[in-house]
């Protein structure tokens, strides 16, 4: 039986025998960071490809299928092209912030990845305030967007960035409150403990009606958080050119683009962890083979990612006033009532 723990433990012991303790722990951290960086750069690229193929199928097209078998190398080729492109910028841009902005966006989304329990032992950083950390990190990304839009000295970019600020600040509330509803059920913010609670049944089953409502609110608000259609006012192509990243090119643009897709993965992964039992298999059918947890985690996440793509290719874009009405008039009041309902459910012990 292969377990991630035994592999990582061997590497860990070998490193600590080789060099002094302080150096070894730094090297270990760097190794883990590099592994995550590589995995998720590639995963982000394949999410872009998935998005393009799924979009094509929704529109009765075929999609990219020329580069590699069924177009599997298409986004790799795109990334190579973006790396080799010139980095342009506007004359009067605030150069320092302009160059800093993409890193804010990509680093905040990569940081959030570190806390997910991909399987029992495959979790880089099991912090005891996991969910709070995720919510906090995912709202740092918007600073990068605001900086990028403001410093590139372009009116479209500025409008896009301001819209992003409005949108993210509003929907942050709904994301937080819908996750808080589930925290009432788990009694812990630590992601490994949230998974532990779900061994008897996924939280969406345990919490039945309020959990389903919380899940729906979370998916709507999460889609808005990632600035994807139907909430893509930030880069509304028909109005703002490309929105906040109008003035970016080459690799800096690629960072924004990659961050958007990794953010989508993060939103789906949080939903998987909190509502659908992370790496737990349904009814514990593969409990004896813990390495399959990765497959279950990624499977559930990809289904939720597909759901977000389905939203994107179905719904028309919201106007800014409709966006705010949806949040402040509908999602937030429902969410607050839902928390009270969930509290009663937990108090009266009528969970399943």
């Amino acid at each position, binding site marked *: 039986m292969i377990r991630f723990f035994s592999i990582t433990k061997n590497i860990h012991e070998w490193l600590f025998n080789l060099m002094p303790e302080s150096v070894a722990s730094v090297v270990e951290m760097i190794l883990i960071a590099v592994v995550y960086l590589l995995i998720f750069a590639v995963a982000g690229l394949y999410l872009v490809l998935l998005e393009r193929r799924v979009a094509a199928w929704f529109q*009765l*097209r075929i999609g990219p299928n020329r580069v590699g078998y069924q177009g599997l190398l298409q986004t790799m080729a795109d990334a190579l092209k973006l790396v080799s492109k010139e980095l342009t910028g506007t004359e009067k841009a605030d150069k320092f912030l302009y160059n800093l902005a993409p890193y804010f966006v990509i680093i905040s989304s990569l940081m959030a990845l570190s806390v997910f329990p991909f399987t029992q032992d495959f979790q880089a950083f099991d912090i005891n305030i996991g969910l709070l950390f995720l919510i906090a990190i995912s709202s740092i990304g918007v600073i990068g967007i605001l900086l990028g839009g403001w410093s590139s000295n372009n009116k479209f970019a500025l409008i896009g960035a301001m819209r992003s600020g409005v949108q993210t600040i509003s929907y942050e509330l709904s994301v937080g409150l819908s996750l808080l509803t589930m925290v009432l059920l788990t009694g812990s913010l630590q992601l490994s403990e949230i998974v532990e609670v779900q061994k008897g049944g996924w939280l969406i089953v345990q919490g039945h009606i309020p959990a389903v409502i919380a899940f729906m609110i979370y998916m709507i608000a999460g889609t808005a958080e990632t600035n994807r259609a139907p909430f893509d006012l930030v880069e509304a192509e028909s109005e703002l050119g490309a929105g906040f990243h109008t003035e970016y090119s080459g690799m800096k643009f690629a960072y924004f683009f990659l961050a958007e897709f990794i953010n989508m993965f993060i939103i789906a992964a949080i939903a998987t962890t909190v509502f659908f039992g992370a790496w737990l298999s349904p009814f514990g059918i593969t409990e004896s083979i813990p390495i399959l947890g990765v497959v279950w985690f990624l499977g559930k996440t990809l289904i939720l990612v597909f759901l977000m793509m389905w939203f994107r290719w179905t719904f028309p874009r919201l106007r800014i006033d409709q966006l705010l009405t949806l949040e402040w008039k509908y999602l937030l009041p429902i969410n607050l009532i839902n928390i009270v309902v969930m509290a009663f459910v937990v108090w009266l012990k009528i969970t399943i």
Partner: protein
Amino acid sequence: MSYFSDIYSGIKTLLTGMSVTGKYFLHARKGAITQQYPDNRATLKMFDRFRGEVVMPHDENNEHQCTGCQKCELACPNGSIEIIWDRGIDETTGKKKKKIDQHIYHLGMCTMCGLCIEACPTDAIVWAQNFENSVYDRTKLTKVLNQPGSKVKAGIED
């Protein structure tokens, strides 16, 4: 309370939309309208109403249906059609009769409006479905539609 009915109708209409696109998604493999053109050149068939270029069909006896009435030449808005005609002696009646020498068609000038084909009283010219019209020399776009040695089909003018 329109608040709750708004929520209900909102969710309902969103799900209706998602079911429509979901059906498209499931049928995408069979119903894809994309033509992977250079690969399927052998099997690609253009639809009937596609306007490729004007051709003059000839039958197995090398006979066409053009009487040389020049209605197509007059109908053409930008002069893509030129008819060089002649007079010959009709064998049966012995009278002088108009016949075409060359039906010249400038594909490079044609806007595919189709007025010539609508004007033709004998259906001598029709649309072809080919679309690979690019050539390396502009003069190759000037085509003579009637084949050499062809003549008009008997009984067309009656």
